[in-house]
């Protein structure tokens, strides 16, 4: 990614002249808003951004960004983005994708990009439905969901995004909610700054085909009690009264109330996003309502080599030692003979 620059952008600089065509009320609008507000904070020249997407409602995103953009084919955003970043490591590369795009047809590219730890920022719009094709279940749809292709309810267990990311050797995983713009901005900035594949799962609402699917957790009335915003180095505290917390009970997480059963704030777990061993982060990413609050924020952020940097470095080191510096050298290398 590029060096810090001094140009000062505003949200407006990242708006393209194209009409935004998502349904009124779709969560995608808020994500666009948050991203357009996060980018100016990065100090990266505008021309260094590339937004790559697959196909889906969410994948229309690049058209609305006044940056370089490539709206690809369904499921392949992670592959295209990997090519963009490897070819030009100077770019800040964003992969915009949906739960179908990334986890159904694109599942393989998704896990391989993560494994390679290519420095791209994946924003996964998880509305637990195929929006663009008008409402079929996706690999994140909860078991039993009635959709156009599951009129009697699905019989499939959904992926948990964080679990899959960590299972694929993921080093950065965060979760946010479309409507929480402030948290989202912060997370996008952290994702951008993290070197390596960053995956941000956005709990996004599709007003048309899966309206309110996240409400049980993210609804205005309940969200404080049913979500926890994790911050690196801070105790795991949540709740309307900010008096709930997480502790470790044997090998499991447990929700506790501060002040009850002798629990004080200092007994709470302190979030360590940078711990390489994913044990606790794994459990945090997997917390489900009603047993637990759903974790938001940066759950895992661990440093590691990136693919594109290692490639660059290997090229450099080979070039230093090699006698072949250009094509003519190569053509004349090895066994050759002259005819006179």
């Amino acid at each position: 990614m590029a060096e810090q620059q001094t140009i000062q952008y505003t949200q407006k600089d990242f708006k393209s002249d194209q009409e935004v065509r998502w349904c009124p009320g779709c969560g995608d609008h808020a994500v666009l808003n948050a991203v357009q507000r996060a980018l100016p904070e990065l100090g990266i020249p505008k021309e260094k951004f590339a937004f790559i997407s697959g196909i889906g409602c969410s994948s229309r995103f690049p058209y609305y960004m006044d940056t370089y953009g490539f709206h690809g084919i369904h499921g392949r955003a992670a592959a295209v983005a990997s090519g963009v970043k490897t070819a030009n490591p100077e770019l800040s590369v964003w992969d915009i994708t949906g739960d179908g795009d990334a986890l159904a047809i694109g599942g393989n590219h998704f896990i391989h990009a993560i494994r390679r730890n290519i420095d791209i920022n994946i924003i996964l719009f998880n509305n637990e439905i195929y929006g663009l094709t008008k409402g079929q279940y996706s690999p994140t749809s909860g078991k039993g969901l009635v959709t156009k292709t599951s009129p009697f309810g699905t019989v499939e267990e959904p992926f948990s995004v964080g679990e899959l990311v960590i299972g694929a050797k993921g080093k950065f995983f965060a979760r946010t909610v479309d409507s929480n713009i402030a948290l989202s901005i912060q997370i996008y900035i952290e994702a951008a700054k993290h070197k390596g594949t960053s995956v941000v799962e956005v709990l996004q609402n599709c007003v048309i085909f899966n309206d309110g699917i996240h409400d049980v957790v993210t609804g205005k009335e309940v969200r404080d009690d049913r979500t926890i915003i994790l911050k690196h180095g801070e105790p795991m505290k949540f709740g309307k009264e900010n008096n709930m917390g997480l502790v470790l009970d044997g090998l499991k997480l447990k929700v506790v109330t501060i002040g009850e059963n002798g629990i004080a704030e200092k007994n709470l777990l302190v979030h360590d996003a940078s711990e390489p061993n994913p044990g606790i982060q794994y459990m945090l990413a997997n917390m489900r309502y009603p047993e637990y609050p759903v974790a938001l924020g940066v759950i895992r952020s661990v440093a590691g080599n990136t693919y594109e940097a290692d490639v660059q470095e290997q090229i450099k080191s080979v070039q230093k030692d090699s006698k072949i510096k250009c094509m003519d050298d190569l053509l004349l290398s090895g066994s050759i003979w002259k005819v006179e």
Partner: protein
Amino acid sequence: MAKNSQVIEREEVVIRFSGDSGDGMQLTGTLFSDTAALFGNDLSTFPDYPAEIRAPQGTVGGVSGFQVHLGHSEINTPGDYSDVLVAMNPAAVKANVKWVKPGGTIIFDKDNFTDKNIEKAGYKSDPVVEEKLDNYNVIAAPISSMVKEALKDIGLDPKSILRTKNMFALGMVYWLFDRRLKYTEQYFDKKFAKKPEIAEANKIALRAGYYYAETIEALNPVIKIEPAQIAKGTYRNICGNIATAWGLLAAAEKAGLKLFIGSYPITPATGILEEMAARKDLGVKSFQAEDEIAGICTALGASFSGNLAVTSTSGPGLALKSEAIGLAVMAELPIVIVNVQRGGPSTGLPTKTEQSDLMQALYGRSGECPVVVIAASTPSDCFHFAYEAAKIALEHMTPVLLLTDGYLANGSEPWKIPKMKDLPEIKPPFADKTKIPFLPYARDCETLVRSWAIPGTPGLEHRIGGLEKTLKGTVSYIPENHEQMVKLRADKVAKVADKIPDLTVYGEESGDLLLVGWGGSRGYLMTAVRELQAEGYKVSLANFNYINPFPKNVNEVFRKFKKIVVAELNLGQFADYLRMKYQEFNYEQVNKVQGLPFTIKEIKEKCIKILEGK
């Protein structure tokens, strides 16, 4: 080394080295070829590996062969039938004897013809009897025992000693063709610099074989093949896969671009990726993708980012790339897709050659989705056509599909090394940085080519993608816009015809029969035509390299012949394609779908039959 033997001269000769996978036949063949090349013969070689899984030792399935065709004049194919067969075991005899010319020489390791090996090869009795080898010049040399004897004092373990058997055989062949040992000895010194005892053992075995041949009567007379009349210059042997990789590398250097290859291994295309991976010295970014789709998609990302983007594969892999090629067509991004054809359909005959992916290359995508299609015709001209493919892709902002095949990929021939400065310029249509806003689908009025704005360039920010678009890159469902864009994309590809050379005719410009081929069969067709011409037939050859678009003079070439015969290694795909494009001619067909190249004999016979109106 003094020669006291009878000598005859020959124009050309075919030699086949064959043995078990572990017998080192590929190396033996390569060393022989290099020596012949250094001597100045023209030549063509083809390795013939066993099918992908290693068969048990000693079986026919496990036989590995290497054929060399060398001559005093131009050599276009590795040859149909061999003059000399080296067979290290009974299975090698079984696999190859039908490809030896009647009366040819067969050298084998007598020590290996044990009952067990004879049975493993599928013989019931002595192969000499069963195969009626008395019709050949058979030299049953006790190779194993002789190397044991020759190396008994050198202090090597028995296994290592036996491993030099191939060099004993090679020594015999060197003597037979009156070749020097020097090049091979130097090779040992270099290769085994750290194990001088192995180098020494190989040299001893080589010489032992040479002297053995000199000693025995059976190998008389010595065959001499004078150097060919070859253009002056610096030469090397090169196989098709390496030539392809190098042609693309040369194009990248010429265009001033970095090369990115996104590929997934698949026989027989893997060699291209492997060579690219080794070319970190030239800054190549080789991305071994998780599958073929990721291969092309990473390449498209790299193309969007301003690299010369390449993806290489074979038939089934090309099928997987179909959808993404559609995206490349719609996004109008340059990319070279190399397809090394193999025996199909499905997994088919992965290690064998065929020309049956033509229709897929032309039409294997949804919608109206034209790409440029080019086919190489010899191992070394893969360099030229890969370079051309990249040049067209970059200058016309289009995917170009380069077809080679298993036979070209693995076959090799001497190649006059070009100088980079002599290669044509490559000038991609980079966007003008001062023309803002950048309109991604605005076109050059003549070539209809859009320009290329590279991410990172200030002011040229833009969006492209797979939905139908207007000039500006805005998604559009307007019916007339769609029709116009469909036609523009077709015309853009059609206009590449303005840049490609005319179809050339080998032989007279008119006559009784025009043999038509495409891509990798050229050597066989040319040899057949040359022989037919020598026999007095009015036959010429037109072999196509540019397939979509066609050169402009096709009709002009075709109409001067009474008959047109299309020869190809499939059921008639190119013939059908010609029927579509040049409906006015009548096409007869010669087809073969056996995983093997044509033989010159079968082409000649078919042509003569057609000429005689049967």
